[in-house]
């Protein structure tokens, strides 16, 4: 008798646990290492969104659970992290990465396992070309390159531009290419193109060559660690022209490393906390309350939006299996997020407007928004 009661109890417990079994979302990000700034900010946005959704009752009556893996900003680690998330943690979808290079490492694995992957900020077109299960919630580099080329021509009034790009980075090379495709036909001239590698610290050689080439402005489509050092060394060498770049510049460390040297520089990005739009203001307030007064960056906002887009797709799919979730994600239309309205196009990319940030007196200030 006692035995039956006990087993009944166990069955009830098991059933109860089953009903509220969480939906697992996998995140792989550069939480430590050279680009820890990218991983940490997007991670904080993701955590905030998941906590909000769970407080509101979860999705399909089940709470969301985040399984986060760190790739230490190292090549090769993203693939390992994603394999682990899929085979051991059995996640239903993947969120990552901010970097295009690391997203490209993980994408084939997600595609093969038929697990939808949503990249918050990987802007290189190749990422979603990997396959039908790979999505993104940000604009792509051809758009970003065009925006910056027009900006250089119209706002900076630059005719001669030098380009410094990172040779080991798909994002950087792509952005440089798309910039040239708009800038040269528009009557601009690229006077010199120099390369560097990720992790380099000395750029004086390339900058000396840029100086000799007589550029009006310098386009540096790289990541913040290198870009901040580049601008600092440029100022040391007496180069006074504006430097400008893409969303890879987006991090607090940029200003910490670059300081005053960055005055008069610009970059394009996805989001500005200074934007007065009420949706953005509400998000900024919630984010600051959750993360000790830290202001959200573009990647925090994109991480946040990635979770909401996924949650929306889960609701519409009514199931967690890969193919159904994939179809629902592909059908995302006019989803209102904090980085703008997201519509997933037939190539699984989002079309959105870009924000241009001006760096002035050691601060990042909102310059303007450019619609697609």
């Amino acid at each position, binding site marked *: 008798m006692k035995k039956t009661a006990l087993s009944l109890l166990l069955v009830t417990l098991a059933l109860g646990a089953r009903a509220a079994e969480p939906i697992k979302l996998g995140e792989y990000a550069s939480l430590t290492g*050279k680009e820890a700034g990218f991983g940490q900010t997007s991670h904080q946005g993701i955590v905030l969104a998941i906590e909000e959704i769970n407080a509101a009752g979860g999705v399909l009556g089940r709470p969301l659970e985040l399984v986060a893996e760190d790739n230490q900003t190292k090549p090769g680690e993203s693939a390992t992290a994603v394999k682990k998330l899929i085979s051991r943690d059995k996640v239903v979808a993947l969120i990552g990465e901010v970097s295009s290079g690391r997203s490209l490492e993980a994408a084939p694995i997600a595609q093969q396992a038929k697990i939808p992957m949503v990249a918050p900020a990987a802007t290189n077109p190749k990422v979603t070309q990997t396959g039908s299960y790979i999505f993104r919630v940000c604009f792509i580099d051809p758009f970003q390159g065009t925006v910056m080329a027009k900006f250089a021509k119209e706002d900076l009034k630059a005719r001669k531009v030098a380009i410094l790009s990172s040779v080991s980075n798909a994002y950087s090379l792509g952005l440089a290419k798309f910039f040239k495709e708009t800038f040269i036909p528009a009557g601009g001239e690229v006077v010199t193109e120099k390369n560097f590698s990720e992790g380099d610290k000395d750029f*004086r*050689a390339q900058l000396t060559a840029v100086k000799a080439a007589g550029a009006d402005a310098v386009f540096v489509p790289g990541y913040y660690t290198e870009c901040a050092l580049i601008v600092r060394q440029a100022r040391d*060498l007496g180069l006074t022209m504006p430097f400008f770049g893409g969303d890879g510049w987006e991090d607090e460390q940029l200003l910490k490393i670059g300081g005053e040297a960055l005055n008069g520089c610009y970059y394009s990005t996805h989001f500005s906390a200074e934007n007065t739009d009420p949706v953005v203001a509400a998000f900024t307030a919630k984010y600051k309350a959750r993360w000790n007064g830290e202001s959200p960056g573009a990647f925090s906002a994109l991480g946040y939006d990635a979770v909401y887009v996924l949650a929306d797709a889960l609701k519409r799919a009514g199931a967690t299996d890969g193919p159904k979730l994939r179809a629902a994600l592909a059908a995302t239309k006019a989803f209102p997020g904090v980085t703008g309205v997201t519509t997933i196009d037939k190539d699984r990319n989002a079309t959105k407007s870009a924000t241009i940030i001006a760096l002035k007196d050691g601060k990042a200030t909102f310059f303007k928004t450019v619609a697609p």
Partner: protein
Amino acid sequence: MSEFLQQLLNGLSLGAIYALIALGYTMVYGVLRFINFAHSDVFMVGAFLGYYLGKFIPENTVGGGLLILLGAMLGCAVLGMTIERLAYRPLRGAATLNVLITAIGVSLLLEYSGQVFFGATPRTFPAVFPSANFTLGGLVISSNQVVVIVVTALLMVGLQFIVYRTKIGTAMRAVSLNPKAAQLVGVNNDIVISFTFGLGSALAGAGGILYALNYPSIDPLMGVMPGLKAFVAAVLGGIGNIPGAALGGLLLGTVETFVNGSQWSTYKDAIAFAILIIILLFRPAGLLGKASVEKV
């Protein structure tokens, strides 16, 4: 012409730092015949010591800057001697390969404990020396580059003095020539080896500060690439040979800078290392190294 001179200056200041690190590799090799791979991480610790000392010592003064430099050199010397005492001395007399693997272990230990203690995110190194830029014709000279070249030159002269004009230097050369014979004539090998590690590590500490001064973003893995290049510089100059290490460092830094400034900037490391291979094909013992016959 001014572009050429500018690149030369850039190359020399980069090469000077490689040379400082290379000296540490070469000295330890000279005495113990093994490559101390943990050396590049002592260099990283030097930069971090400077970063933390910078919080207590006023920035932007020459005196404060020298104090930070000395503090980091002292700290690194102690670290180097501790590593030698704890990790390498128990293996004295064991096969070189065992010591080499231990060295790699110590290197990884330092890198990843650095990630735990200092954090993995890059930090901004403070401006410890007052900085200014001078223009000379078309040439822009930053005071930090001058500091690097001058400090390196002074340290090398000091090192040369210690090795050739002092008692401990004579003992170092004796141990390097033949450790057993040195012991027979009354040289205390342990003290000499410990001193060599201390001296080499102090130079790495100075290198760390000078590097961070020019490239003010420091992280626990910052030693890996400069360490590798400095090792190459030491081999290029002739490992075990002190002026050789200096020459190798300057040469590597200059070549790297010129390739970087040319249209082949993509292949900078490939070209620098190809030159190394070519030089070693013609002079297997390095530029200044003496070919020695291995007695079996």
